[in-house]
Every structure is written in C-alpha cells, then in structure tokens.
C-alpha cells in the first residue's frame, strides 16, 4: 500500500471520527548556517497532525525532529514552506508549550516557581498562579518538594517539573522534545503512565519527539517516521491500540508487530545518518 493510500485511509478514519487537522505542515524546509557551512535540516516535509491526537515523531539522531518542534513552537523561523496551526489562538493561554530534554527547568528557581513560570510571564497574579501550580505539582506527585531547588531533585523528578509546567500553561498543543530521553527504563515507564493520564484529562494535541520506538508506540495514536537529514516524513504508522494503555492491557504481540514496521522504516535511515559525517 502506497504512502498516499495509507494517508488517505487515516484521513478517512479521522473524518469518520470527526477530527479536524490541527497542525498542517506543507513542504517545510529549513537551513542552518554553521561555522563550517550550511546544513539543510528539513526539506519538503509534509504532515498533518489531527486535533487531540497524540502524535509521535521518531527518526535517527540529527534528522531534524528537534528543529521541527522548535519551528512549530515559534522558537525558530523556517525558510521554505509553511506550518499552519488551524486553531484560534486562545485569549489568555498559549497556543503551544514545550517540554524540553534535560535542563528544561531553571536551577535558580524552586519547583513551584518553575511550574508557575509560564503563568507568571502571562501576568497571572501570584496567588492564582501558585494555586494552579500546586494543582499540577500534585498531579505529578511532587507536592512535598514544592519549595525544593532542582539540584535537590533526581532526573526523573526534574522532568516531572517540566511536564507540570507545560500542563499548567494549558496550551492547545503540547510539544515534547524527548522528555524522558535521559532517564532509566523504570522511571521512564512510570513517567509515561503519568503523562498519559495527564493528557487524558487535558484532551489536547501532543506532538512527541523520541528516538525510542517502543515509547512512541506505547504513547502515540500515530507514529511518524522521519528520514535522515534533510528530514521529511518518510512514513506514518497507525497505532491501533485501545486506550487506556495501562501495563496490564498492552497487547505485546501487536506492539511487536508495530515495532517491526516502524523499525524497518527507520533502519535504513539510521544507517544513512550514521554514515554521514556530522
């Protein structure tokens, strides 16, 4: 089945489900100037992310997934093509909020100040923003550590603060850049569950970048495979597993099948990117 057909089928499914397109990426391209010349990070990238879906993006390192995320968030300008977010910017909430890899929280702020940061920048009163922050700190189970500084926290705890902050901002779209990349396997699984339950409550769109295929399948409604640099969407795999995806209910066989599909798609790209000189 060709890529076109695959997309059409998903689109049909979505249309049936009544979902509209949230993020429309058309022919996106971006070029970086570095000390040693220019690098084409993205080229000809097309993608549609649907409203309220959990969309995962996997690809070999250096393929431009982080660049893409930053373009969607507005941190980076792009050179060619377009990214349209087909939603109205909400009045007092941001359109997007990003969860970063490590170092996403300020070492010089306490946990609660970190979580309340986005709210502070939008002018929410101190009382109100602490109230909201406490709520989300509670949801990620860090209430005891509200006044602690990041250097007192473990890696997993720090990431939970980053997630709490993004959710406290209550954006339309969550952008997550390998948030659990630097954590050990057990912490990762635990936090994945936490994230899924937070997302379930929020009912918003998520674009989640990761290099961990199993994680992508575990979390996502669809998994987009990005090609090696210059990056573009090579394939989209539907993850037709039922939610809620708690550990007991995960059908391991189906997951393995999906893993194979994605892996086959990605492995050629990984080889290509490993052969490349960075």
């Amino acid at each position: 089945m060709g890529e076109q057909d695959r997309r059409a089928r998903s689109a049909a499914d979505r249309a049936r489900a009544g979902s509209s397109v949230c993020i429309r990426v058309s022919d996106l391209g971006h070029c970086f100037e570095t000390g040693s010349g220019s690098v084409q990070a993205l080229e000809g990238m097309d993608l549609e992310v649907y409203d309220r879906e959990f969309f995962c993006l996997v690809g070999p390192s250096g393929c431009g997934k982080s660049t893409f995320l930053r373009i969607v968030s507005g941190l980076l300008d792009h050179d060619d093509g377009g990214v349209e977010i087909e939603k109205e910017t909400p009045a007092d909430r941001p359109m997007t909020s990003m969860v970063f890899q490590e170092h996403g929280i300020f070492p010089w702020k306490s946990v609660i100040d970190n979580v309340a940061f986005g709210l502070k920048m939008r002018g929410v009163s101190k009382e109100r923003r602490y109230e909201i922050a406490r709520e989300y700190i509670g949801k990620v189970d860090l209430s005891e550590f509200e006044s602690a500084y990041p250097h007192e926290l473990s890696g997993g705890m720090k990431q939970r603060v980053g997630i709490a902050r993004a959710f406290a901002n209550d954006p339309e779209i969550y952008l997550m850049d390998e948030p659990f990349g630097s954590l050990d396997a057990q912490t990762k699984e635990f936090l994945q569950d936490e994230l899924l339950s937070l997302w379930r409550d929020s009912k918003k769109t998520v674009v989640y970048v990761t290099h961990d295929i199993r994680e992508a399948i575990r979390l996502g409604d669809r998994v987009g495979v990005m090609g090696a640099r210059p990056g573009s969407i090579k394939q989209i795999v539907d993850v037709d597993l039922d939610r809620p995806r708690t550990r007991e209910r995960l059908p391991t066989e189906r997951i393995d099948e999906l893993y194979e599909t994605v892996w086959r798609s990605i492995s050629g790209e990984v080889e290509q990117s490993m052969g490349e000189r960075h």
Partner: protein
Amino acid sequence: MTTRLNRLRQAVSVLVVLATWHLLTAVTGVISTAALPAPAGISRRTVELLGESSFRAHISATAWRTLLASLIAVPAGVGVGFAMGLNERVKAVVAPVLYALYPMPSIALLPLLLLVIDSKSWTIIFLGAVGGFFVLVWNAMTAVEEINSVYFDVARDNGVESRYALFRELLLPGALSGLFTGIRLCLSTALLIIISVEFITADQGLGYFVWRAWGLYELSDMYGAVIVIGALGVVITYGIGQLQRRLLPWQTDTDDREFTSRR
C-alpha cells in the same frame, strides 16, 4: 551578520575614534597636545623608541621579570592547588594559612622586603610571583574539585587504577580548561604587580620608563611605553587564549548566540 562584516564595522569604529582623537588634538587644538598628544605623534615616537636599544633593554627587563615570576608562580600555584584539591588533609593545613594571607596585596610588603632583600630585581620578581601564585592556587584547587566524582568512578570502572594514572588520564585534561584561565590570570597579575613596582622603585623596566617619562613630562615617550606595555599584556592574555584553543580543541565557541523574544 557575517564575521567579515563584523570585522569591518569594528575597524571602521576604531578608525572613527582615532580620527576624532586626531581632530581634537593636532588639527583643532581643542585638547592641547601638551596634555594629550595626537595619535600620529604617539605612533611615530613609539616606533622610534622600539628602535632604541636602551628602550629595548627596558622591555627585556620587564619581560624577563614577568617570565621568571611566572616560572615560579605557575608550578607553585598548580602544585599546591592540585595537592589541596586531591588531599583533604593538605587542604586542612594549608588553606587556612592561604586564606589569611590572600587578602594582603603583596605590594604592600614592598618596603618591608626592600629592608630585607638586597636585590631590587629579585624583590620585584618575588612580589610578582606571590601575586600570581595566590590567583592561581584557588583556581587550580577548584579545577580539580569540580571534576565530578562520577568521572572518577567511570575511570576506575574502565581500569584506571593507580592515582597517578587517574591524574594523567582524567584530572589533567578535565582540569586544564579552568586551569588555563587561572594561568592567564596569574601571568596578567604578575605583570601588573611588576609594572607597579617598577613605577615605585626600580631603575630599569617599562614601568620605570613610564613613570620617569611622566615626571619629565615627555608625554609621547610615556604613551609609547604604555602602548608597549599594553601590547605585552595583550600578548599574554590572548597568546594563552590561542594556546588554549590549540591544546583544548574540544571547547566550543559560544559566541554566536543571539536570543530575541518571539512572542
């Protein structure tokens, strides 16, 4: 903004400053050349001075003193600093003494030393070395301490057993970057002290030359020597910077960052 454009802008702005200076002094006389000579006059005199062997003797006196002071201060500072960083007991004994002494500017001891030591030159060198030593020793100590203990575990896991091997494989490269800054500071401080003491009491050296030129009101001479001193300082600071870049190529240049708010 490419670096070529940057360099051009910088060159232009420097030229503008020099031109204004020249205008204010030589051309219009708003500032009298007796107080501040024109750049043309200064550069001419500087070149002349460099041609005179007596002036060059002053340069070499200062340069030698700085070099000798550094040759004393750097091994001493690094040695003591490393020892303190590696061994708690050494630190416990030595650190309090250094803490008490560090706030004292070594130059204050000059008159005392003059009473006691015969050779002016060696007094100058010694004071420069002391100043440089104090700046370097903390730097060396923290450079060692800051290497995460995790790295030690990693190294030991990978079979680096002996203390010496640990030092060589792990400590030295890791400590080197902070150390270079410390060494740079050490040399600059030594130079500063040496020039200062030469102001006060010497019969040779660039500092002596500047002070005498000022006393005799030969301002062009004074500025010329100041420029040479400046050049010496620049060579030390940026020379070591270059050395650092050669020897430690893994350090990245963080100069290209520019962050503007987007929302």
